[in-house]
């Protein structure tokens, strides 16, 4: 179940050479769309990150950038439409219907599919969230077009095709994927992979409204209830300013309290590498890396993490990466900015104490004075 199967990679040159005159009926497909994810009144930040990328693609192609907002009638949907323009959209498509109050596959995939078939975008970007992936897979299959998951780079080729780059083989290599003869070219991008663009207050521009065309009886799946996460902090990992993480070098599940203690002292979020989750030492929502969370903190401290590519692609957006590892040849020292060849189990408590001293009220006053 893979985008970039070994066979596909091996056979790519012959296939890539087949290109191509885009079939006539696809030539009407123009412009770049970003699906704007609104859940319980909030726009997911990944939608704005995609708006930034979409703006670049649209400018390169000389076309318009549109935000697509699906939601119930009311303020939240209206606000999401306004945000599209604040983050650089030229226009917005809006489907407003009470049936779109909470995410369900059936009404959302119908609304998005109808919009695509009616207004024909050449590129459609979605966040690779649980919602975005659920929706994108359905819509791409209905449209019979290509969908590239979890892209880390989006670019436009000389001939105007979308070049979507993503990690492959569990993150050991990167590959660039094209959807040559089909439209739209669809891609998902995980939260935090792209930088957050600047928000600029701008008036609401052109808004195209489209009907959903469903009644509740048409929708089979019913939402019985919604149970919000109790530990709301877990979702902050991707957006935290400071992150401390541990890897297999910590040796045992109980040593992760050292990571937590340091994180608590400096007000950071904590995480771990993939093998740690596979060992069952940490829950999967704490995993940092290609298949976990992507982070872009100001400071990232990696303790006992070797730095496999799958981890690297999830942390490269950090301003400053600090690595603590006993193995001076560990790949993490190839992309960390500051390194310490030391045993994290010994060093973490010392680091926690040192930070506590530095950030103590006494020192605070000194700094203020």
């Amino acid at each position: 179940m893979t985008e970039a199967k070994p066979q596909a990679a091996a056979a790519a040159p012959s296939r890539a050479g087949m290109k191509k005159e885009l079939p006539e009926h696809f030539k009407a497909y123009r412009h770049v769309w970003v699906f704007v994810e609104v859940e319980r009144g909030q726009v997911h930040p990944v939608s704005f990150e995609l708006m930034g990328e979409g703006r670049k693609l649209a400018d390169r192609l000389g076309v318009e950038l549109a935000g697509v907002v699906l939601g119930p009638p009311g303020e939240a949907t209206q606000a999401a439409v306004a945000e599209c323009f604040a983050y650089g959209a030229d226009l917005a498509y809006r489907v407003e219907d009470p049936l779109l109050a909470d995410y369900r596959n059936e009404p959302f995939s119908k609304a998005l599919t109808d919009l695509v078939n009616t207004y024909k975008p050449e590129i459609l970007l979605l966040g690779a969230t649980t919602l975005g992936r659920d929706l994108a897979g359905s819509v791409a299959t209905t449209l019979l077009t290509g969908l590239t998951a979890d892209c880390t780079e989006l670019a436009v080729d000389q001939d105007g095709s979308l070049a979507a780059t993503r990690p492959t083989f569990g993150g050991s290599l990167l590959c660039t994927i094209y959807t040559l003869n089909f439209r739209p070219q669809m891609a998902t991008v995980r939260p935090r992979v792209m930088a957050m663009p600047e928000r600029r207050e701008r008036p609401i521009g052109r808004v195209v409204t489209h009907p959903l065309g469903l009644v509740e009886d048409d929708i089979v799946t019913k939402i019985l209830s919604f149970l919000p996460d109790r530990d709301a902090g877990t979702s902050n990992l991707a957006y935290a300013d400071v992150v401390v993480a541990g890897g297999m070098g910590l040796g045992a599940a109980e040593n992760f309290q050292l990571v937590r203690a340091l994180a608590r002292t400096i007000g950071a979020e904590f995480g771990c590498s993939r093998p740690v989750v596979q060992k069952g030492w940490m829950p999967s929502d704490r995993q940092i890396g290609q298949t976990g969370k992507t982070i872009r903190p100001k400071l990232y401290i990696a303790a006992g993490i070797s730095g496999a590519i799958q981890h690297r692609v999830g942390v490269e957006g950090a301003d400053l990466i600090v690595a603590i590892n006993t193995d001076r040849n560990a790949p993490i020292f190839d992309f960390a900015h500051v390194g310490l060849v030391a045993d994290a189990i010994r060093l973490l408590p010392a680091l926690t104490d040192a930070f506590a001293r530095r950030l103590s009220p006494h020192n605070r006053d000194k700094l203020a004075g």
Partner: protein
Amino acid sequence: MHIVVCIKQVPDSAQIRVHPVTNTIMRQGVPTIINPYDLFALEEALRLRDRLGGTVTVVTMGPPTAEDSLRKALTYGADRAVLLTDRFFAGSDTLATSYALAAAIRRIGETFGPADLVFAGKQTIDGDTAQVGPGIAKRLGLLQLTYVSKLGAVDPDGRSIEVERRAEGGTQVLATRLPCLVTMLEGSNEMRRGTMADALRAAREPIVVWSAKDAGIEDIGKCGLRGSPTVVKRVFAPTARSEKAALIEVRPAARDTADALIDALFTRLPKLEAELIAAQTA
């Protein structure tokens, strides 16, 4: 109840090596496993069968050697295994894969009785797309429940199912109609140890092997490379950063090393100290 579970045989990612010159995956000698996420789907299907009665059919698309994973699934207690294998499938992307698997599941239904439920893992560890499950659902016209963390009441006679589904910021409790397709979240259960009886049966149980034609696929153009809208144009290793990490000297006392490290951090991020303090007072 008839439950179909889609599995994939994948290289054990822990042992993948990349050829330093050609940047291709060196797959020789790399052991294969059942995609770990699929085990949660299989276990959930087996539990449901144990509770409500019926059969579990596992299906995979892959090379003839994918039989190994099917036999493994039989040792866990699956009743029947179907291998969809054909050179026409080589190079399939997710759209072509979902086309072929949907055809096979349709044929499984015609041959062994219609499927009430189709299970899949949330994604694979080699492709990580999470697209084939939704693709199969769409092609079979099944309702789709992805990222399911817990199965609630399943009523084969009333044709209904309730699940808990992981959503952004919380859990949705959903009810829908059978047949449907469920992708299971990791950690939702723990795979059983197969019984000795199942191990013995798995060794001699004939595997159902179907070509594209056997699965009722008439349009080969929708399979493999030809049926794949996406094209992999380039595979490459990420470029290394030009400079290596600046190493902090390790002092005899961990306390001194820690202080040196913090000095280095605050020098490189001059605003950090004030920000950390501000965050603490906030």
